[in-house]
């Protein structure tokens, strides 16, 4: 089982979930984050202070998947998250972490059944 963390553009959330639903990955957790990366930021001004900041708004997706679902999940995210065919800086990243166990609270199921 893998824990997939994807950082994407807010405006791509809908298209990513659409792609995921096509492959029947319909469980995930979403949260708003701010990101800092290759994408150029902008001058930020606050009264007497100004500063170059790169903190841009992003969306973080967390999806626990069984191993056989990993590849299609990543593919679906990539497809949905790209701004356009060739991709643009700031489209985001996907991190794959190992999971040791999963428990579904309501039923008490554990392991890959619980995902």
């Amino acid at each position: 089982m893998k824990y997939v963390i994807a950082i994407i553009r807010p405006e791509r959330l809908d298209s990513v979930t659409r792609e995921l639903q096509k492959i029947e990955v319909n469980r995930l957790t979403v949260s708003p984050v701010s990101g800092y990366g290759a994408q150029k930021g902008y001058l930020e001004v606050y009264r007497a202070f100004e500063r170059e900041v790169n903190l841009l708004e992003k969306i973080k997706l967390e999806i626990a998947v069984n191993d056989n679902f990993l590849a299609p999940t990543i593919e679906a995210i990539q497809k949905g998250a790209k701004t356009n065919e060739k991709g643009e800086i700031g489209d985001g990243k996907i991190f794959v972490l190992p999971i040791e166990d999963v428990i579904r609270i309501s039923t008490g199921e554990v392991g890959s059944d619980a995902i």
Partner: protein
Amino acid sequence: MAIVFADTAWVLISSALVLFMLPGLALFYGGMVRRKNVLSSMMHSFVVMGIVAVLWVVVGYSLAFSHGNWFVGGLDHIFLQGIDYNSTTGTIPTYAFIAFQGMFAIITPALISGAVVGRIKFKSYIAFVIIWSLLVYAPVCHWVWGGGFLTGEALDFAGGTVVHITSGISALAILVFLGKRRGYGVDVIKPHNVTLTLLGAGLLWFGWFGFNAGSALAADKIAALAFMTTFVAPAAAGLTWMIVEWFGTGKPTALGFATGILAGLVAITPAAGFVTPMAAIAIGIVAGIVCYSAVMLKGKLGYDDSLDVFGVHGVGGTTGALLTGVFATVGATGLLSGNAHQLFLQFEGVVITMVYAVVCTLVIGFVLDKTLGLKVSVSEENIGLDQTQHGEKGYNF
């Protein structure tokens, strides 16, 4: 001439109420955009308070209200020349009249901003507001209220034509150059904070009492009538919108109810002091249905009038202007009182204003697009206008 203190108090507080609609509009629009564009959207309303207030006393008031020709006023009162604190207009100090009218000049271009959020360059927006105010608002205001060729013909109690039709149709016209927001039609671009929008609707209704009932320019019976119609029409329109939506989609949304209120406020504006409260309810119901349909239609037609300026102000203003010609009974007569001609005059006023506003807006849009450029770059749009145009973010940790 001696002023009437009660009228002065009423027009002054009404003026303050109308200015208070700008923060209301900023919230109403700001809540509906994405987080990354909230300040940009709010600034579209705020900055107009700065720009047009100054522009109005420098030249706008003179162009709209000083003696001129059928088309536009003269330059007699630029920089408020020839007016001092002793001058009077009707029963109030001229300064009170100028301030009150100035508020209308402010809110009109700000309304347009709802169509262009999330993609217009800030400096181009400023240029647009200045030019549009002089080229569209001042003349149309002169036509209808300042002694121009529609004065005394088309009925427009508080600005259905002057304010809402001009802004609503211009919002549509400027889209020719601005196009859609990225992702529009594919992704649902949802309001980032509906509580702001609801609060904005509350401020707008509150301020609208000044807008409409203040337009009596006296604390008299007509003011009370206009107050009453401004009370019931939006109520009826909000309910109507809610019911239609409930049947249509299965859910009565808060946003829908708020939009319905706004549609009712817009539609009653030209009629406020001319119709009975019961006619106002009828106008509200019609406005609720018609504006709802217009907004739904947008989904089908696919243009991105982002916050439905045309659907609410253009369509609602037109509905109100025509229905004024149907229901007018107080101080004027409409179709139902046997004066079919009034409906024709209303129609004429609407069409002329629309054509004029569209043509001017297209010209302004074209020129600005070729010079300053109207639309931000794709990457700026992605990042959001708050950071790229204003160097700040609405929310920080």
